[in-house]
């Protein structure tokens, strides 16, 4: 059996896997500023971290249930919206994750350099 390393679906799967791992970090970092789901999704997409709503909303719920986010329903522009922001515990975890990410980044840079 042969495997083609340049198969588009294989690359796509690996790419998605790689990005999936960074989503939590991106969402937590973006929610240092309070936002509701739709604006968060747009902000992430504008910065090159597009995330579909089917992934984002369940992720927001999971992070909230883990105590990393706080949320509240509030009216804005005559519509009720659910606003999310980082909780104090979330800020602490974000700091730790960012440090970890920087460490991975510098290790990978060294590895790639050979």
């Amino acid at each position, binding site marked *: 059996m042969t495997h083609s390393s340049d198969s588009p679906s294989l690359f796509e799967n690996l790419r998605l896997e790689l990005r999936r791992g960074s989503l939590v970090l991106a969402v937590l970092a973006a929610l240092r500023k309070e936002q509701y789901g739709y604006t968060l999704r747009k902000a992430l997409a504008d910065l090159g971290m597009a995330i579909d*709503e*089917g992934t984002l*909303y*369940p992720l927001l719920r999971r992070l909230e249930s883990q105590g990393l986010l706080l949320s509240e*329903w509030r009216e804005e522009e005559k*519509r009720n919206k659910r606003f999310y922001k980082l909780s104090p515990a979330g800020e602490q975890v974000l700091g730790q994750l960012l440090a970890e990410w920087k460490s991975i980044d510098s290790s990978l840079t060294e590895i790639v350099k050979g």
Partner: protein
Amino acid sequence: MQLLERYLKSLSPLLPAEQREDILRELSEDIQSEMDDKQSELGRPPTEDEQYEILKRRGNPLEVAAGYTSNRGTLAFGRQWIGPVLFPFYVRVLTFNLGLTFLIVGAVFAALSLAGQQVHFADLFSSVILQLFIQLSAVTLIFALVERHLSRHPHHWNPEKFKVELQVRIKKDIHQKIHKKIREVPRFESFSILVASTVALLWMQSLWSHPFLIFGPAASLIQLAPIWHRIYMPTVAVILAAMLRAAINLVRPDWIRFRDVAALVLDAASLAIIYALIFGGTWVVPATADSTVAIHAAQAVNQWIPYGLWIAAVISLAQAIKNLLRLYYNWRWELSSK
């Protein structure tokens, strides 16, 4: 926003009950925001076709709902057999089938035990393991085939169908029905009935050649009495009719009255079968006529079976009353929508 409401309505029964309202509110807000953005971009409200595109991009409601279920398990041996979308339903069907089977096996062993027959834990354990293996294989196979079909046709959900249905409805009676709620038999209810009934049929069919399936090691002592042979064909007919009903509602979930009437007819047939069983007199007979142990075991089980049958009769009657009330309320609702 009729289309948005229909999308959310199709999503609603698939979401976890305790978060349903909250999730629907949030998704509704997200879709409305996207439609508002589209309106700003176009300088006019999005057309129906453009709204359909927005909803279609969000994907099949089954996949969307699967993201919110706490049971995100999958079944994989090498490759994935049952994915996160179907897994909660797989667990539900398996739990129901296994629960029912273990109840029967447990009742037989309890009856033997209460009658003073020696029941070894190893016998009970081997019987339970065998049931587990059979049910697990049958249900897993069916769900794996469905999963294979879904993965080959991932975008089966088509909002265009909503559009056609909606247009037909509007043409039919725009002033009367447009603001009415649309009632449908959930497709997963029909699907679950089909799977559970298939497994029940296979299980029943195997009972004659493998009485071990119901009696466990006690199969060497007792066997089913002739009454079970007499009710076998009517029971198979009822199960097949239930499967036919579910298959029809899978294609036509809007046939609510058909479901309600068919359910009542099937309830009546089930009650008639239970009635015939209750007055059957003897439900198990000794496997060997000259064995006193076998005769004693058969007497013990026959002594306890009526209690189980009466419980089944009460449950079936309660189900029939519930279905009768449902028929009445749906009939009233239909009258009020005209």
